[in-house]
């Protein structure tokens, strides 16, 4: 198992390296940082000076090393458009995205899993088919459309909930949270539902199909043949076995949620990293793009590693040494 961890860590480092290379290439080949930062009217002297300051005259490997060194410390330079340090911008925006993503993930799990179990156990009931029909719509609806429709209904027509921004935030030692105010919660509702819906339907369908598979296995048949109660069979055995792949897949989905936050933040003008990224893509603000790339890659790599380790915790077949089996 130790070998496994080491191998995965090495893999993680390789991935980060590749991402760093890609980010760095963005700087090198896309646009001209000097023009972007100084504008068209800069003098030749200013350009030369800036090139020197940015180290653009050094050989490429040296530049790459500098880039990596800075990146590891969280320094991605200064945004072309906004003139502020990228690390500051990200620090401001990160809590917004993380809070939104977490809310969406919890919502997706707390609603998706029970719905999935219900549709698996009560296959022919009306409610189950209703859920399935909704899930089909959920999978066919792009996230941005869900957001717009929710805004249309709840903000424009009914006027119950706000439709953009984050509301009041409270600064919690550098972490600006909106979870401590009622206004913040009101602003959180529509975006988190929007972000959660796709995941929710995915989880529901996954739980359902996994559970149906599990219910067909021999050990469930044997459990029934032993006269175990329905509750023991469905929740003790079937659900437990169903949740093993589900939990791990859901862990991977968290990364997906953070990525889809880009869309949700755009629709709701939620001041998070996703919105920052989209704006930077639209104006080719390379430092922010590069920083977002590296940060997202880091988050994904960490999540994947945690999920892999989670498999060990949850499935005893991977854990225990096989040498103890008698033959």
């Amino acid at each position: 198992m130790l070998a496994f961890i080491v191998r995965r860590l090495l893999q993680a480092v390789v991935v980060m390296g590749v991402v760093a290379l890609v980010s760095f290439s963005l700087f090198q080949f896309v646009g001209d940082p000097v023009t972007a930062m100084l504008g068209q009217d800069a003098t030749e002297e200013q350009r030369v000076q800036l090139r020197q300051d940015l180290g653009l005259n050094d050989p490429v490997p040296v530049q790459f090393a500098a880039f990596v060194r800075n990146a590891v410390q969280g320094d991605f330079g200064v945004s072309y458009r906004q003139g502020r340090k990228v690390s500051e911008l990200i620090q401001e925006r990160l809590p917004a995205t993380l809070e939104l993503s977490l809310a969406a993930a919890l919502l997706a799990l707390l609603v998706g899993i029970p719905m999935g179990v219900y549709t698996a156990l009560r296959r022919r009931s009306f409610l189950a088919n209703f859920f399935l029909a909704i899930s089909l719509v959920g999978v066919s609806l792009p996230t941005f459309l869900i957001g717009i429709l929710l805004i249309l209904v709840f903000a424009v027509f009914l006027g119950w909930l706000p439709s953009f921004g984050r509301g009041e935030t409270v600064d919690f030692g550098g972490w600006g949270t909106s979870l401590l105010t009622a206004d913040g919660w009101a602003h959180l509702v529509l975006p988190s539902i929007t972000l959660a819906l796709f995941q929710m339907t995915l989880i529901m369908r996954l739980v359902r199909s996994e559970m149906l598979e599990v219910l067909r296995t021999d050990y469930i048949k044997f459990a029934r043949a032993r006269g175990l109660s329905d509750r023991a069979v469905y929740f003790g055995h079937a659900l437990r076995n169903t949740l093993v792949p589900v939990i791990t897949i859901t862990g991977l989905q968290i990364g997906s949620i953070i990525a889809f936050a880009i869309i949700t933040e755009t629709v709701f003008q939620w001041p998070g990293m996703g919105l920052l990224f989209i704006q930077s893509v639209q104006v080719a603000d390379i430092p922010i793009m590069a920083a977002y790339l590296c940060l997202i890659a880091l988050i994904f790599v960490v999540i994947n590693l945690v999920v892999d380790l989670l498999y060990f915790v949850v499935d005893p077949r991977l854990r225990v040494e096989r040498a103890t089996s008698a033959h």
Partner: protein
Amino acid sequence: MNSIQAAQAASSAPLLEVRNLVVEFPTRRGVLRALDDVSFTISPGEVLGVVGESGAGKSLTGASIIGLLEPPGRIASGQILLNGERIDHLDPARMRRIRGKEIGAIFQDPLTSLNPLYTVGRQLIETIQTHLDLTATQARARAVELLASTGIPAPEARIDHYPHQFSGGMRQRVVIALALAAQPKLIVADEPTTALDVSIQAQIIALLKTLCREHGTAVMLVTHDMGVIAETADRVAVMYAGRVAEIGPVADVIHRPKHPYTVGLMGSIPAVGSTKDRLAQIDGAMPRLGAIPQGCAFNPRCPMAFDECRSRRPDLMPSGQSRVACWLHEDALTQGSAA
């Protein structure tokens, strides 16, 4: 059992009675009859073997008895009685109480019969506590006893192991322990040794036999392996195309087979020391469920078929100590047998 014991067992009230069982599967091509008028009894403590080719309906019979017939299959008609009370079409709650406590089951593949995520002990204790009123400590002690009785070494340690930590033969022992945990009166064993190594098969069969003798548990042993039947069963039923072709004491059916199908079966078993250089075989194949011929299902392949066989389906008729579904033995009725 000798014939006197067999007669005694037969005359005392049967433990399980299957009467005219019909199991159907509605499909888009019409309704298929997987079991067509199957009848037999099992007496307390006896081992009834059920043999036949794949698809003859042996496993379905077992599944119907424990009430685990997979939909859309359903019992269309007939009765299943346990100690004189009907258990087919019982409501789920009562059927659950019967399963495990009155009737136990063992399936073919020990690897997939056990939940891989729970220890063997947890699965045993859960079963014990479902049927018997014991505390957790008592249940655990009983679980250890059960494991020991099935021949698993160091049971106090192995009780906390996971199924994948056991070898195939050991796993089937655990399965047997689980099936016997609540001391049922009947065990339906569906091909319990087919998935095991040949060397292990004999051990498992011997174990099953010993334990069942000890507790007086009856066994319905479903298998396609005649050798196992010869070793273990008291009586045997031969199934063909969803019907019972012949049923009688083991020695009779094996050494003095009456139904042409059984004759063919016995003749096709290779015997050590035999000088034949070709195995006898029965021409043709068992008919598919949708294409069962009129009259006796075996008639297209039967070397001794005549007109009656092609038009009327034979019921089980007494012949010697067995009963045979074959018109060839109709005369036994008029001659009067000693059975």
